[in-house]
Each structure stands twice: as C-alpha cells, then as structure tokens.
C-alpha cells in the first residue's frame, strides 16, 4: 500500500512539473489560466491521496474548499478576459 501511495505522489508531482512548464511557456494568458486550473485539479487529487496516506478524513473538506476556490478563480479570470481588462501576456 505504501509503495502505491508513493507512486501516486510521484506521478502527481511529475504532472505538476509538466503543468508548470506550460505555465511558464504559455504563449497567451488563457493558456496560463488553463494550466492553473489543471494545477488546482492536481492539488485536489493530491489532497485526496494525502488523506489516504495519513488516514485523516478531514482532508476531504480541504479538497472541497480547494475545488471551490479553483472554480471561482477560473470564472473570475474568464470574466476579466472577456471584459477586456489590461493585459500583458
């Protein structure tokens, strides 16, 4: 069980590194927003894995809050882009 959990963490961390590369490269601002949203998804999954790892059920609440803030951030960014705020890619 331990080995599988470590493997899960390693895979998720690799995914995080790849998303960070896209976050730095991303030619336009919407690309970076997509990368940030997927990064929030990785964080939610990582919190779930950590809840299993530490056998603490309270971390599921943290996952709920993380998903909520990620959704609000994505909607806010989209609204900001569509309303035409000042932009410097």
């Amino acid at each position, binding site marked *: 069980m331990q080995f599988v959990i470590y493997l899960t963490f390693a895979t998720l961390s*690799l995914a995080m590194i790849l998303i960070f590369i896209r976050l730095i490269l991303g030619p336009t601002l919407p690309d970076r927003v997509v990368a940030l949203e997927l990064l929030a998804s990785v964080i939610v999954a990582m919190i779930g894995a950590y809840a299993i790892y530490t056998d603490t059920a309270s971390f599921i609440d943290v996952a709920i809050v993380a998903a909520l803030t990620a959704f609000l951030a994505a909607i806010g960014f989209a609204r900001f882009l569509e309303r035409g705020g000042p932009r410097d890619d």
Partner: protein
Amino acid sequence: MIEWIIKFLMLTSSIFILLAAIGVLRLPDLLTRMHASTKAGALGITLMMIAASFHFFDTVVMAKSLAVIIFILITAPIAAHAIGRAGYFVGVPVWSKTVKDELINCYDPDSHRLLSGLETEEELEIYRQNLDYKPRIRVTRREKND
C-alpha cells in the same frame, strides 16, 4: 480485496492526471489543451475521491467525497466553457490545421456582439444601426434631467 481496489483507483487517477498534464504541455493550441485538461482532470479527481471513500468506508466521508465529485462534474465544464469563450474572443490564435471555425468573422470585438450567421437583412440593418451601443453586463444609464 478492497485494498487492491483502492490501489487500482489511485494509480488510475494519477495516470489520468499525468495524461492531462502531458496533453496540456504537448497539444498545439488553447482549445485542444482545454480538451485534454478538463475531461481527464475531472476523471482523475473523481477516481481519487472514490478511492478515498473506499478507504475510509464511512458514511460522512462518502457523502463528502460524493459532494466533491458532483461539484467537479458540474463546475469543470462551466469553467472550461467560460475560459474557452473568453480566449476565443480575446483572439487567441487557433491551430493552423483546424478544419472548421464556424464563428470566424461573426464576433465584433468593438461592440461585443456575436452574430449567428443566419440573420435576415432586416436584423443586419438593425445591427448596423446600433453598432455604437455596447451591451455590457452592468450598464449604468443616467436619466436626463434638464
């Protein structure tokens, strides 16, 4: 038995999320990147939450993880729609091998109007007359008092 199910779900979840990350890194433009990230990411979170609910096997935790799953499945398409719409209208370049773009020349960035392409002549005439009117979400209009 149930431990093997948890192991399988965790590994599948992490592999799906890794696939989403590879897709975000490798695919050519914004829409295809979103196509990779939204669906695979939502499936990854879903599988991880099912694994957590199997691991704890408690009614409260199951309800919470089910809430996370339903929340993700509702909000992921909405967020992707909002970002994709905003990105298209901002003018993010589309991949050069894109086969079909039905909204091309239908959006006016100055007046924020989106034409459907099926307007009659009368509607187009009304549209041309009202070009300077910008519909926004909050329009503050002041009544003219002499």
